[in-house]
Each structure stands twice: as structure tokens, then as C-alpha cells.
């Protein structure tokens, strides 16, 4: 055996050497001579890939997972038909939610019966998915806050232990007791009570219950809570009035749910009556983004009305229509006059409104007040307020070259677009007196 192999090697070796010699003789370039014995080369073609598949040893166990899954298969329990139809429906919905969870959709882990019936009543698949996603996000946030609280508590415990370890803490000598939150609350309450007797009224019109979906109403109530809180903390609070509040309505229910026991201790006036019945009509001004009139100066003897509505599907002209019906004066905030509006609707949230009104009431400066307009909606303030810009442009023409265009007053439903390559002649518009900028 060995002999034979060596012999074979020798013979091949000899054969190659002979070949080489003859090639050199015939002056054939070396590259073309096959010195090396034949070896398998890997040619990358698709055919070979197919061949490889056939010979691929793994091909055999590609279906292993199936057999394993079948072995693991638990006999699915047959669903027991329940006697109650409603129950079975609920169960079916619950199962659907569970399966969606397994399929990796954003649905909550735990779901209450009440939420399930809400899911069931929603008309379309997309509505169901949206609602479930909302619940899932809510659940996630809850979990996160819980965990944070746990961490905080543990940290506090550690601190406590450290303090206990440090024996003999010297007592501090102070002339004031610590100013607790309780004392703050008392202070705020005194102020608010004062405003209830002598302050300027600010009305929230609660008559938009029927125009809102449930979610929108929840948002509105959240905003109202923020309003009341912000008002209470201010130096000179408004006397808040919740008018047109239906005592049997869902609004009232939601407010009660959110405020709890504090509802009866709130230092605001809550009434079913309309603002028209309480206040003189000529003093009322309805604030609405659809108004053609601009609120130039905040007047301390007027009573401003804010429609408390969240309209996610923008309902143009709703509050304006109300004001028209009652023949009230209307006004909108001077957003276009002070801000380079970028995008977004000009209807602001209730808490932004009250912040703006409180600030302008205290300081009298719109520049200060309009800092509460969300930054994403505008590109900054104009360097000069409107009147000054107008005069300076009419006085000297040099300002024509500066690119300060008077903002065009646009109603809320129009998207403000940034006009580029505007011809210079456009600025002559500002000479024209506009019917909608006059004082009411």
C-alpha cells in the first residue's frame, strides 16, 4: 500500500518535471503549464448553489422546529359555550385583545370589563386599535411612574438610615418654622378668596359638551384643572366662573371624578346659568380664534370668556357662532401682530390662554404674555410691535429694503405659508386700511 502511494507520487512528480523541461525547451510561458495537480475550485454560480442545497446536510433538519412544536402542542381546551350572550361576546373580545398582544400589537396587558365593553362598542377596527394603543401607552406610563417611585423610596430610606447613623445632630437655630406646602396653600387660598370678592371675572363657557368626544372631554377637564391651579398660584388671580355647566352632564361627572372631595371646596363660581344672565352684555368679550377683531390691549374692566372645548377635529366657527348668537363682542389674541407664525392652529389650549391672560394682566406687555404660545408654532417675535413697524415704514422708504413684511392677518383655518421671493410691491398693502384691524 505504502509503496504504491510513493510510487504514484514519484511517477506524477517525474511526469511534471518532464513536462516542465519540455515547456522550457519550447519557450512556453510558465503560467500556462499546469504544475499543480488538479484541485477543486469554487465557482460561484447559481447552479452550484442549488446543488449545494441538495447536498446541504442542514436541509434535513430544517423542519425540526415543526416536530418540536407538534410535540409541545397542548390540546387546546374547547371553549365552553357560556349561557349569557353578552358574556360570550366580552370573552371573544378579550380573546381578540390577547391574541393581538401575542401578535405584537400595542395593546394593554390588563384590561377591565368597562374598557372591554368600550372596545366592543367602537365601530371600526382602526378605532379599536387606536383605543387599545391609548390604553397600552397609559399602562406603560403608570408602570414607569411606579418604578420611579420605588427607586425614590429606596433612596429616601437609605438617607434616613444615614441620618440615624449620624448621632448627635445639632439642632438648628432658626427664627422661622419651615414653610410647608400647607402654608403655601393657605396663602394662595386667601388670595383667591380676595379675588372672588374683588377680582376681575374670567368666564369658562362650558356649553360645548355635546360637541366633544369622550377623549376630548377628558382632555378639556385636564386643561381646566391646570387653569385653576395656575390661577390660584398667580399674584392677582382672576375670579373664575364656570358658566353653562349642566349638573347632570358628563362634564360635571368628569370634573367630580377628577377633583374628588376638593370640588366643593374650590374657590370658583360654578353655575348652570349663562354668563349673559350674570354680567352686563356690554362688558363681555368672547375670545375666539375666528374673530375678526384683535385684542390690542387687555382691559381690566371687561369680562373675558373662554370657550372650554378641545376640538381635535377642528370645528371652525363654533364659539364664534355662539358669540354671534348672543351679539357679544369678540376678539382674538394678537398672535399675527407679534409672532412670526409658522405652523399649527391658532387655537391655543385653555391653560395657555389663562397663562397669557394672567401675564398680560400683570405686566401689560404682550411680548411677555405671548411667551406661553408653544415655541413649535412660531419662529420668534417680530423685532418691533406692529404699530411701530407700520409708522416706521411709512416715514422712510429705506425700510422697504429690510425684509420686515407686515404679517398678513389670516384666519385660523388658513395655513400660513412663508412667502419667498415676494415682490417688493407687496409691502404697499400695508398702506391700505384694513377693515378687520379696527378697534371694536
Amino acid at each position, binding site marked *: 500500500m505504502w509503496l504504491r502511494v510513493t510510487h504514484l507520487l514519484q511517477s506524477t512528480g517525474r511526469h511534471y518535471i518532464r513536462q516542465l523541461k519540455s515547456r522550457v525547451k519550447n519557450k512556453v510561458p510558465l503560467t500556462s503549464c499546469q504544475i499543480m495537480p488538479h484541485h477543486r475550485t469554487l465557482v460561484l454560480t447559481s447552479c452550484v448553489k442549488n446543488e449545494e442545497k441538495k447536498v446541504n446536510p442542514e436541509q434535513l433538519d430544517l423542519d425540526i422546529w415543526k416536530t418540536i412544536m407538534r410535540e409541545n402542542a397542548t390540546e*387546546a381546551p374547547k371553549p365552553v359555550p357560556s349561557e349569557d350572550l353578552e358574556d360570550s361576546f366580552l370573552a371573544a373580545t378579550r380573546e381578540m385583545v390577547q391574541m393581538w398582544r*401575542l401578535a405584537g400589537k400595542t395593546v394593554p396587558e390588563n384590561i377591565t370589563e368597562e374598557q372591554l365593553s368600550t372596545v366592543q362598542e367602537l365601530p*371600526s*377596527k382602526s378605532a379599536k386599535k387606536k383605543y387599545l394603543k391609548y390604553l397600552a401607552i397609559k399602562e406603560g406610563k403608570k408602570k414607569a411612574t411606579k418604578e420611579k417611585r420605588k427607586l425614590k423610596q429606596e433612596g429616601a430610606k437609605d438617607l434616613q438610615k444615614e441620618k440615624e447613623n449620624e448621632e448627635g445632630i445639632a439642632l438648628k437655630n432658626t427664627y422661622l418654622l419651615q414653610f410647608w406646602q400647607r402654608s403655601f396653600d393657605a396663602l394662595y387660598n386667601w388670595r383667591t378668596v380676595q379675588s372672588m370678592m374683588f377680582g376681575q371675572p374670567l368666564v369658562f363657557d362650558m356649553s360645548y359638551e355635546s360637541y366633544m368626544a369622550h377623549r376630548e372631554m377628558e382632555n378639556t377637564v385636564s386643561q381646566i384643572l391646570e387653569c385653576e391651579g395656575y390661577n390660584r398660584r398667580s399674584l392677582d388671580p382672576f375670579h373664575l366662573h364656570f358658566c353653562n355647566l349642566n349638573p347632570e352632564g358628563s362634564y360635571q361627572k368628569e370634573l367630580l371624578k377628577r377633583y374628588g372631595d376638593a370640588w366643593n371646596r374650590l374657590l370658583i363660581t360654578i353655575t348652570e346659568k349663562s354668563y349673559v344672565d350674570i354680567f352686563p352684555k356690554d362688558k363681555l368679550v368672547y375670545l375666539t380664534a375666528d374673530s375678526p377683531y384683535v385684542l390690542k390691549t387687555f382691559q381690566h374692566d371687561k369680562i373675558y370668556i373662554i370657550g372650554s372645548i378641545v376640538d381635535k377635529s377642528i370645528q371652525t366657527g363654533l364659539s364664534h357662532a355662539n358669540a*354671534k*348668537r348672543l351679539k357679544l363682542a369678540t376678539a382674538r389674541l394678537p398672535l399675527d401682530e407679534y409672532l412670526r407664525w409658522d405652523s399649527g392652529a391658532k387655537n391655543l389650549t385653555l391653560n395657555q390662554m389663562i397663562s397669557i391672560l394672567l401675564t398680560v394682566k400683570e405686566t401689560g406687555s404682550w411680548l411677555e404674555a405671548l411667551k406661553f404660545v408653544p415655541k413649535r408654532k412660531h419662529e420668534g417675535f417680530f423685532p418691533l410691535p406692529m404699530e411701530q413697524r407700520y409708522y416706521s415704514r411709512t416715514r422712510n422708504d429705506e425700510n422697504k429694503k429690510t425684509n420686515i413684511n407686515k404679517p398678513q392677518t389670516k384666519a385660523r383655518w388658513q395655513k400660513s405659508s412663508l412667502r419667498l421671493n415676494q415682490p417688493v410691491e407687496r409691502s404697499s398693502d400695508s398702506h391700505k386700511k384694513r*377693515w378687520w384691524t379696527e378697534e371694536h
Partner: protein
Amino acid sequence: MMSAQSLRGVVPRLQRVFGSLLPPHQGAARLSPCCVGPELCIASKVSMSTERNQNDGSKRKVSTAKPERTAHRGNTGSSFSLFTAGAARKRAEFTKGQMGDTLGDDAPAVTKVSKTAIPIKPLSIDEWKKLKAEGYNKTRFEVSMMEKLLSTRADVDVAKSLLVFVTMETGTVEYELLLKYLALCVQKQQLSEVLDLYVILNSRFKVLDVGAYSLFISGFSKTDHWRQAVMFLDSIKKMITPSPRNYGDIIISALWHKEVETAWRLFKEMEGKNLKPNEDTLLAFFDCGKSFCDDQYENKMMYILSYLRDNQIYPGEQLMHSIHSWFESIPGNSWEGHVTTILHSGECQVCNTVLESIQLSEEEYNLLRKHVMNDIIQGTDVFKKTTPQELQHFQTFVQNRLPFDVVIDGLNVANITAKGNQSRILLDVVSHLARQNLRLLVLGRKHMLRGTASWNKGHMAVIQKCADCFFTENISEDDPFLLYATMHSGNHCKFLSRDLMRDHKACLSDKNTRRLFFKWQRGHQLVLSRYNPGHKMKFEIIPKYDTIVQTTNNTWHIPYDEEGVERCSYEIPRKWLCLQRHN
């Protein structure tokens, strides 16, 4: 006679005027030849042909570097108007050009470069392990990998090897991963694999989710087990309304298996649920129809065509060809089909049949009038758009002066160009119409009477001499009044505005009324297609026929959507399929 200087200024203005309707430079080229001298052409570098209706597509040198397009106009019936398919697209492109393309085209979406390479061959368990260790998303590695395989339409074997890896690691496969794998199998038409998966999933889970059932429907309907897909459909029905796609899959397979009754039952069920069938579902009906040639099936097809008519669905080009060949395959009646356009007179160019009129019937007209009053003007709150006093005032005003021939939206007409004095433009248009002895009503707002730079009091006085005018409050809407006045003047009355009235159409409560409104609008809206001061005014031609699937005793006319033309919901197709029967 204009100077070259002024012409240069006119060109962009013209473009602004009817840019929505014409290719940008065409306006300049169509200036009335009698008033533009040849030396001006040189000045503005526009070499113009003096023929009005030229559509030879000769290359004109245009100062603006815009692609050359020729609009075939004339009486060929394919003239371009506000409502023809593609008009909105053109307008958008034009305004984009006007903005100087500062917005730029939408930047191509940056595809995220995945850090993990997607294997193209089945990997062994160790290789998968290595890949997972390299991957950054360790928690959902398997699912995200399966998603990648799905999006790159990878080989099923790769997915299988991934599943092997997962089972070896964890001893089981999650539902989500199985679902993604099922999607891949359905995508790659691995039908035996789909059947296996069904067995596995059925043994492991009591019920499945809607997504799984949908996938099984589309998988099973391609196999001999397609009848089982009907059961899946029932399971979906327990949870939600199935999608048109679910129904479509089963209908198509039923038709291929010659089960017309099942397909028909499902089609009716869809109709009952107000679901709009997909194009390929309808396509299957006509495609399979060639093998059946009984009267019953023919009646069903006729029913489908009337369904298209009632729901104002326009078939696409592919479906149109399918309908065409189905008609020609009917034995006995020798149907013959042609693709055509319709003349303005409403006559088909092939068979000379006059199409249905665009005018509403008496009954429809009254219904629409009632709805416009209730939904658009009053709505839930009269104060939203006007006040009751104003409405009352307007109604009496109109009653005393009826009927009008043209109702003009003053503000819309006055703002037709950005340049030029607004009251001047309105006066031009009103006097032009008044010369034709038409009874006019001009609607405006009160601020037009104030006498400002753009609203000259003298002009307004002349306008009030030529036409009846009604000025609403500055905070009221004028369009509803326009619609009301036009409707109450009767069927002959037109209104002049470039507004598409989409927001008012949306106020209407039900689909049917919206359709009626759109039909009425197409037949009664005058649109100023060309306006430049001191020149002839041109209005868009109002078609006399209704664009809808329609039939007479031995013809069918079916409007269809051309491929590659984007049609908005407020537009109608231009091309027709004309079918006639030769006995």
C-alpha cells in the same frame, strides 16, 4: 399696442391666471396675434405660431426652462377643465414651479442601514448565535430578523433555519414569530407550508387574531382547501368587519373553481356591508366570465356594471380591457368595443350615441336643493356661516328678483390674478357678461363697498348698475348664498367661481347627495379659464353629458381611469370604453 417691456411683465401674470389650466408658457404663445407685433416676439424670445389650434408639438424656444407640453385643444372633447383627471396634479406642479422650487422635491426617504446583515442562505444554529451576538437588538432579534426577511422577500429556507435556531434556543416559537413566518410563506406562495402552519397554530391556540385569519384566507384560497377560507372569514366576522381584500381573495378563488354561486353570495354580502370591492375582485368576475356563457351569469355581470354606476366607481385600465374582452366573448351578440373620447355635445365619437345629460332630474334637483339649504347653509347652527336675519334678508332679496342666469362670486373673481385692481377685474367680468344680456347676481362682502384702493367706489357703482348685488356681513360666508341663489334660479342658472366647493360638499350628510352635488356642480359651474385685461374672456366649456357608466339598448359607455394619470376624488376620467352591439 404693448411694449416689449410690458409683455415681459405679462407673461408671468398670464401664467398665474390660467396656469392651472394650461402649460405655463402656452399662455404667452396664445396671446391674440393681432395685438402682438413680431418684434415683441423677439424681445420676449417666444416664437409664436399665429394659428390658434395648433397641436403639432413643434418645439418652441421658451425663456422659461420648463418641459414642453402641448395641450390638444379644440373640439376633440379632450379639453382640459377644472374637473378632468389630472387637473389638480397640474395645478400643484405649476404652483411648485412658481415658488421657484424652493421647497424642493421630497427628499428620498433615507433607508436605515441595518447593522445586521441579512443572510441569503440557511444558517446553522451556531451561525445564528454569532449573528445574534453581533446584532444590537438582542431582545427582539428573531422577530426583527423575520421582518427583514419579509421585507426583502427572502427565501423561506432561511426563515426555517431561523425557526430551528429559535426552537433549539428556547424550545418553542412565539406566536408573533410564527405570524411573521406565515406572512412570508403566503408572500412566497409556499402553500404546503401554510397548511402545516395552520395545523400547528390550531393545535396550540384556541383562537387566532384577525391578521392570522386574513393570511390564512389568502393562503388557503390559492389551494384546493379554499372552502376552508370561508370558515376563517366567519371567524373574522365574529370580531370585526372583514376587509374587501378578505372577501376578494375568496371570491377570486371561488370563481377560478367555477363556484359562481358562492362568489356571488359573498359579493352581495360585501355590498350589504358597504364595502367597496377591489379592482382585482371585479377583474376576476369579468376574466372568468369568458368560460361561462349562460344568461344568468350575463345578468350578474350587468348587475356589477350597474353597481359601478350607482356607486360612481370608475374601472382602471386593466379592468376596462377585461370588460371589453368579456363583452366580445359573448356568443350570439356581436359586441364591438373601442376606446374613445366624447365630444362636447355629448356624442360618442365611435357610435354617435348621445350620452346621458348632466342635468339632474326634477326629483333629484329638489332633493339637492333641500339638502343644500339644510346641511350647507343652516347646518347644526345657522350662526356658524351667517345669521338668521341675514338669511331671511337674502331669501326675500332673491325671491323678488328671480330668476338669474349667472350668479357671480365677486371676491373669487376679483382675486383671479394677484396683479391688477380687484374692483376693475370684477367690473370687467360683470360688464362682459352683462353685454350678453344675462341677468346677473353678484355676491360679495360689505367691505367691498368701503371704497379702498383695491375697491374703487366708482367701479362698484357701475357693477351695481349692471347686476343685482348682495353684500353679506364681513364675517359671513358667501359661498352658501351663491349655491342657494343658483339652485333657486332653476336649472338654466350657472355660477361663476374657481372655487371647487369641496368644503361645502363635505357638509352634505350622505354619499348620494354628495354625488348629486358634484354632478350639479359640473353642469353649472362656469370657470374663467382665461383672463387678461383688455382681451377676450374665455370660459371653460361645460360638458353636456354625465361621466358615468351608462347603457342604452345596444350600447355601453364606460368611463375609465387611464394608467399613469392621477385622479383626485373631485375629478372625473376623460377616456371612455364604447361598446356597441351589431345584430
